């Protein structure tokens, strides 16, 4: 397949990523630890974007893949003393494999039934983890690694970069056209030859892969995993909030959304922590009512030139 010439959107995103890389290198550990969590949020937002953003299948259980990645890394590092990078690889692989297995079943549901199934899956997975002493039996798995902020930082940075480029090219490709058609009108899509089953599974597996990878880096960054927080519903909601605020399905939206959700919450956390979910919730409601296409949609509508450039 011939690769099309990239547009301004991709150049812009690459510049932002270059800035993020140099900020970590030049400004030191304090700044990079703030940006690390931002990048983890962004990685999660891009991963759910493949499912909810592009296909329109609302995934309330995306935290499941994050948890799978977290447990993969924590187990590998704490029991086998493996290199955390190996843990990230395993997290991604398990995310992919679980997405394949789960997707074959739950992608048969549509709309609200799919959404409910994703919630149930998380509850089931949480209760399964509680049964296994090897997985901490509901407690925690912690490990001690030498502090290596740059290694963690550039791992998640690389994951986000891959996600951005992939999102961009998937949207422009044949697969992107097919996935958008499914999002718009699934039955009509199959009536012109699109195979919804294959394409939906592809999108879901991409979501699982990157969700797993991001979850592994998250566990790496906090040196462990704890059952309760690992399956916290709030993560799923935050991921959804990020793509809704940024602009569903787009290449810029998840990063924009991650910034909008994360930066204020970082400052609020030190002052009024309880206000954070409230404010994000309000913002999502306002966006859903007045700006269903998120910030990207707003920018596109405001300016004809932006409409052609923003993807």
């Amino acid at each position, binding site marked *: *397949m*011939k690769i*099309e010439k990239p547009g301004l959107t991709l150049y812009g995103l690459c510049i932002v990523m270059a800035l993020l890389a140099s900020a970590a290198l030049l400004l030191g550990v304090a700044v990079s630890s703030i940006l690390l969590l931002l990048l983890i949020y962004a990685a999660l937002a891009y991963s759910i974007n493949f499912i909810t953003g592009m296909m329109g299948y609302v995934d309330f259980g995306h935290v499941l893949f994050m948890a799978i990645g977290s447990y993969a890394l924590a187990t590998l590092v704490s029991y086998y003393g493996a290199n955390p990078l190996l843990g990230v690889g395993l997290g991604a692989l398990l995310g992919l494999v679980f997405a394949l297995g789960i997707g074959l079943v739950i992608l048969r549901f549509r709309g609200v039934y799919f959404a409910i199934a994703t919630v149930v899956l998380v509850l089931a997975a949480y209760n399964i983890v509680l049964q296994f002493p090897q997985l901490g039996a509901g407690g925690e798995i912690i490990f001690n690694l030498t502090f290596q902020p740059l290694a963690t930082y550039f791992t998640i940075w690389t994951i986000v970069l891959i996600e951005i480029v992939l999102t961009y090219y998937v949207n*422009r*490709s*044949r697969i*992107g*056209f*097919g996935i*958008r*058609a499914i*999002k*718009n*009108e699934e*039955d*009509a*899509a*199959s*009536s*012109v*030859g*699109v*195979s*919804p089953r294959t394409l939906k599974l592809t999108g879901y597996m991409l979501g699982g892969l990157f969700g797993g990878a991001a979850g592994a880096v998250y566990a790496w960054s906090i040196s462990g995993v704890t059952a309760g927080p690992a399956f916290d519903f709030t993560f799923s909601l935050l991921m959804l909030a990020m793509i809704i605020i940024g602009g569903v399905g787009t290449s810029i939206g998840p990063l924009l959304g991650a910034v909008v959700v994360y930066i204020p919450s970082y400052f609020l956390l030190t002052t009024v922590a309880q206000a954070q979910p409230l404010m994000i919730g309000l913002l999502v409601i306002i966006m859903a009512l007045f700006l269903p296409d998120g910030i990207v949609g707003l920018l596109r509508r405001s300016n004809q030139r932006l409409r052609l450039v923003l993807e």
Partner: protein
Amino acid sequence: MPFLEAHNVSKNFGGVQALKDVSLDLPESAVLGLIGPNGSGKSTLLNVIAGVEKPTSGIVKLDGKRIDNLRTNRIIRYGLAKTHQIPKPFSNMTARENLAVAVLYGRRNIHSPRFALEEADRILSMVRMGSRKDALADSLTVQEKKRLELARAIATGASILLLDEVFAGLSPEELKDSIQLFKKLHEELHFSALVVEHVMRAVLSLSQKVMVLEEGRVIATGSPDEIVHDEKVIQAYLGSKNPAT
């Protein structure tokens, strides 16, 4: 050698028999009209042929190959496409993107979106919608949506079109325009078509042959002229001339 053929197709929905032993031939580049009162099974027949529904019994063949056990998106590869009675455009995509999807995933299995978009533009101007190519499908008028539905079926590269009431709900002017456009397209593309229609004027002027369904059964087949004079057809539509018999 007929191109599309159906033999003794029956379809049950629970206890209701929607189609009873329906057979038909659709030779190459022929237009077959399909009429009948509401609920007579016209749309069900199209759905069965297009793979949306599986027949309870009977066989559908395309160029001699059985297609009655294939799914819709596979049947497209054999060159058969169906329009929807109520247009189902990809609402948040532009008219040209709507067609591009059909070009990419249709019979020709194109891989370049750029080529598909060019192809889409060509087909849009063929159906006289060139000026609307960048409009979101959602913002099109009813007539334009119906036309987009037809154009999208053509864009799949199909040589057999199953058209479900593409002429319904149009004003007399629009109807005249659409009939004329259909004739022009048929001359240029030589597709064969199975046309389900309530608008008699459209069916009779387009079809070489007309088939009449009533309660899932074929009650008459013939030229448009024969059909309008057929006793059974008149009875099905208007009731018996002489209620005593």
